[in-house]
């Protein structure tokens, strides 16, 4: 009989890397009913998590650069335009199908209170079951780091200095139980 482990390892690897198809995920789920397979899965998942953290903590990942001024201005203008459109849409609905008039009011009345400005119903608190894979709470600390890449220019004695933001991420478990 063939050893099923290599195939299982491949499935787990694909799942951890986000490459598994829905069918492969179903197959993996089915195989995880076997305790040995589940143990292997947990081992691989923990290893991936910890090694990934160690690598990101040691070498960092590229931090987000602040967008250039022109780009930021364009984004702000887009946001203002979107807000204006939303307001226009709001008033249009208010006139044609708001709660005080229009043909849609009856259907809306069941869900919406008499005023548009009434606060929405407060959702009930739901106690979430603690999942089986519950882990001790952790906090993630990101230490931004600025590095410079210095490139010599064609002109002697002239250098081009490029600032690079980097984020060194570290996850710290909260040891104390409250």
């Amino acid at each position: 009989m063939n050893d099923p482990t290599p195939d299982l390892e491949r499935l787990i690897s694909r799942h951890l890397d986000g490459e598994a198809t829905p069918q492969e995920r179903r197959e993996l789920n089915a195989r995880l009913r076997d305790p040995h397979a589940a143990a292997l899965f947990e081992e691989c998942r923990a290893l991936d998590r910890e090694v990934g953290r160690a690598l990101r903590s040691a070498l960092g990942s590229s931090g987000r650069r602040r967008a250039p001024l022109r780009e930021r201005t364009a984004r702000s203008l887009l946001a203002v335009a979107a807000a204006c459109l939303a307001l226009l849409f709001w008033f249009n609905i208010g006139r044609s199908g708001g709660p005080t008039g229009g043909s849609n009011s009856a259907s809306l009345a069941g869900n919406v209170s008499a005023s548009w400005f009434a606060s929405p119903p407060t959702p009930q608190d739901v106690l979430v079951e603690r999942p089986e894979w519950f882990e001790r709470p952790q906090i993630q600390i990101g230490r931004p780091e600025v590095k410079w890449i210095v490139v010599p220019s064609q002109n002697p004695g002239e250098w081009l200095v490029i600032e690079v933001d980097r984020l060194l991420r570290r996850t710290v478990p909260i040891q104390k139980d409250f």
Partner: protein
Amino acid sequence: MADATVDAAMAQALIRAAQRGDRRALEQIVHAHEGWVRAVIYGTTGRRDLVDDVAQQVWAQVWQRLDSLHDPRRLRAWLYSIARHAALDAAQERQRRRAVALDAVAETLGAQPGGGPVGGVACGELRETLLRAVEALPAIYREPFVLRHLADWSYARIADLLGLSVETVETRLVRARRLLREMLQGKIEP
């Protein structure tokens, strides 16, 4: 698909601008690619202490040799080739210097080179143990593993960069995980 075309066109325009000497264009290229270039350097050498120095060398070479990149669509492959060669050269140079230094120490002390645990400072931290395990992987497994975890690339993208098939990348990642599991047995709690 349209977005990808626009992105590719913008990237090509950026490279052309950098080739004309536009420094801001080079700056944008550096920001877009320096993360995975560092991953390649670490994946190739398995040495954290070389990453920053080699990255500097790579970008200096890129700036000097950008004119030789005739097809901007090949930027990633071109960068990879520069980064890999620079990383291998730096690792060899460091190894050579270390061997010379160890010989000198051995001569001075009258000891045989390689007779003791040189530089083997025991470090109890889990992070250090994990990094050492990654660094102990054969380069062919370490490279895709680091690109996957640091640059967060898909199999297809890694395969494209390393000039391998997607299946080979997948197999190497499975083997990298297997080797790491063997090396770190009992050190990580699921």
